[in-house]
């Protein structure tokens, strides 16, 4: 069986998965398990969405201060 290609691939995959122990965050574990898949594959989708929502909320909260912050950051490179 150890000569079987599928078996060797399976062992390789299982070893790879077992690098870290599963994450547990107490009562928040189900929430953690629901949220993390969005960051594992193509995270830019959720990152783009959340950053636009956050910046809109910040603009509604702070108004022109955000424009000043943008100017300061633009000089920051």
């Amino acid at each position, binding site marked *: 069986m150890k000569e079987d290609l599928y078996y060797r691939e399976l062992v390789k995959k299982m070893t790879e998965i077992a690098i870290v122990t599963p994450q547990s965050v107490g009562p928040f574990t189900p929430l953690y398990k629901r949220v993390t898949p969005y960051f594992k594959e*193509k995270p830019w989708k959720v*990152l783009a969405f959340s950053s*636009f929502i956050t910046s809109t909320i910040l603009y509604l909260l702070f108004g022109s201060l955000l424009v000043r912050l*943008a100017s300061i950051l633009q000089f920051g490179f």
Partner: protein
Amino acid sequence: MTYSLKLLKYFLLFTQNLLGVINSPYRAFRRISQTEELGQLIFIFLLVAFYFAFGTSIRLGVGNPYLLSGEFNKLFSFAILTFLLFSTLIYTLGTIFGGKGRIKSVLLGWSYTLLPTLVWFFITSLIYILFPPPRTLSFPGKALSLVFIAFSLGMLFWKVVLYYLTLRFTLKLDLLRILGVSTVLAPVIAIYGIIMYRLGIYRIPFI
């Protein structure tokens, strides 16, 4: 293996990991944590060098090559020093918090977290040319500010995800311990940023 073949191997690894960090960072960092091919760092630091050459020429213009090369050397040297300092700090703090890993893995993992930093600095330099600051309170000014802040937040969130994965895979830490390391690291980053600003090296620290 000849030198050029090794370089090609590192380049292929770098490209594979670069695409992985963008599309599936979880899988990419799991892979990165298992390799010890530090040669990949060459390509990351080539990108860093390219950025500093580009950024410095925008800031100072290309009229004074002596001033330009002096500024470039200063910024690039401090970028490498910062990278080594924070890699060592993360490794030390991670070990104190019960993490198990090798410094080589931390160096590799942390080097890939420089990608959001690089993208932010590159795009900010380009926007500096295309839409020179300061932003005004007109509609286009507000709209551009909103888009720029959203882009900056996106890069920050991406950086945080990659930082988390570095600690998770290279030092095998869980979320609670990662939060512990971050609590110690955050003020250090703030103080380091202030020192760099006061010394006139970086306005925003290249971390």
